[in-house]
């Protein structure tokens, strides 16, 4: 239990440190937060209607 929990905590901390200390990384890293491009297209279509 201690090994498993310690390992996942250390891995998460390592990833955080890597993101925070690598220059420009925030512009190149993504989760699922990006808005798909078709959403903007649909909004534009709705605005013109």
């Amino acid at each position, binding site marked *: 239990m201690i090994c*498993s*929990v310690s390992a996942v905590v250390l891995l998460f901390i390592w990833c*955080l440190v*890597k993101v925070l200390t690598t220059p420009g*990384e925030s*512009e*190149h*890293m*993504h989760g699922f937060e990006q808005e798909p491009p078709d959403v*903007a297209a649909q909004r534009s279509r709705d605005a013109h209607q």
Partner: protein
Amino acid sequence: MAAKESWNSKLGVILAVAGSAVGIGNFLRFPGNVAQYGGGAFMLAYVISFLIIGLPISWAEWTMSRYGGQRGFHSPVGVFHAVTRKPWGKFVGIIGIIIPVCIYMYYVVVEAWCLGYACNFIADPSVFHTQESVGSFFTAFTGIGADGTAWGMGLDHLGTFLIICFALNFFLIYRGISKGIEMFCNYAMPALLVLALIVLVRVLTLGAPDPNIPSQNINNGLGFMWNPNKTVLVETTMNDAGEPQENRIQLFGRQIQIAKQHFGLEGANETELPDSSAWLEETGIANPAPGTSYRVEEVSALSQLKKPDLWLAAAGQIFFSLSVGFGVILTYASYLKKDDDVILSGLTAVSANEFAEVGIGGLITVPAAFAFFGVTASVGSTFGLGFQTLPNVFGMMPAGNFFGFLFFFLLFLAAVTSSLSMLQPGIAFLEGAMDISRKQSVAILGLITAIGAGAVVYFSGGVKMLDHLDFWGGNFLIFIFATIQIITFSWLFGVKKGMQEAHVGSAIRIPRVFQFLMFLVTPLFLISIFIMWLWDKFAGAGETTYYVTDLFGKNPETGAWAAVAAILLFGLFVLVVTLNSSRYKSYDHGPEQG
């Protein structure tokens, strides 16, 4: 100002990645799986599955998706079409549409459960104060008692909450997540983690809540969850047909010593333990009833690890939790630019998920359930643990109503963001294959999932349709699709070419050992588990899983067949659309997009 903005953007992206990684599976599905499949042995299989299959396939999926996206394809069908450059590629990608849409059909129902529980913790928390009342509430709210009993309006029925969830999901997926909502969710998810940490500290300091039952304590609860070896008391009785039936009860601490002393087993304590006679009387060992006998068994981790069910469940949990083999990463990573970092993005998402799952979820639900209610309450269905035991635990804690509301409301928010990600593959597919607008695509998918979710709500008896969608879609199909993905990446696309593609724009390098793992170990490991499972269920001496007997046994379950029908019918729809689409007729993918 520039430095502060840089720190804000770095923190923002970490929050976004963590938010997309954490979901209700970490706190509900994972502990339920661990308890159902035997605790520590499941964790061994889980850790091995994470290293050998979860992480490698996650990287493969991020890489293939960005590759397909650069060529203008933003759904699993299109990505497989681009990556394989074979006529059959797009048909394989169909599985990546079926999985998230069919899972959404029950996921939105669970999302409504979370919202309903959150509201009831505020409006009528008394329902969570005793095991009996929470059990009655769960039965009425979920309709688990009989088909057709879940639907209804009011605080103690599902209807209102399901309508709210469905409407909210489709409003957000159509409009896109506005900046305001995105920012709220980005902070709500980490807030869920912070709250979970607070609950974790509270749980780990519980000790033995009932001084009259000292064996029901947090230490033994953690042992139940994490210890791979078990000592069980086997009670053998005869049923009406004269056939022996066994009931296995796991033993802890002093119970093990008392049992070993009584049966004269190796390792028994020489000194007689106080109150041993009371426990022997209570269990029936001292004076067995006619036709009843007892024995003690040591169950090693190895014997548990020989069960294919356990490996399938461990692999399935890894895939479900990491969103690997889901079709979701194949969709979202396709929007990345050519030099976006897929390796660190994938690793950070995976590590955030495992932190929430193993580091927090694995230490809360089952140990707390054990400490309050013992083994029987800790073992059971995923939903029983999350929606009966855990609310009761909150109900019995000081300030538990507040924590219960906050916990389930934040789970609801986590479920909303996961739901939205499950809908996007289907929407992107319909837009691309049928050349229709997002509005039209959302309308079609809304109708399909409304029918599916309605069926899940109707066939609520035993949560059969939900349970079978979760197994056949959320375990079985994901397993197959993930296997196909790693074979496609490593053997068809080529593992060397795949690694080169993955490293474009990356801040870190994948350790070289993973190249060997992805090429040989991962595919063979997955194929072996699958063959073992098929052999065990259909040709071997293993006990057939109820997921099969519910379909093909003497008394087939309608809800089970409804789940299979939903998967097959939707699959047929996607197949027909793909066959008639001109989008996938050519392999001329055009210039790469920047």
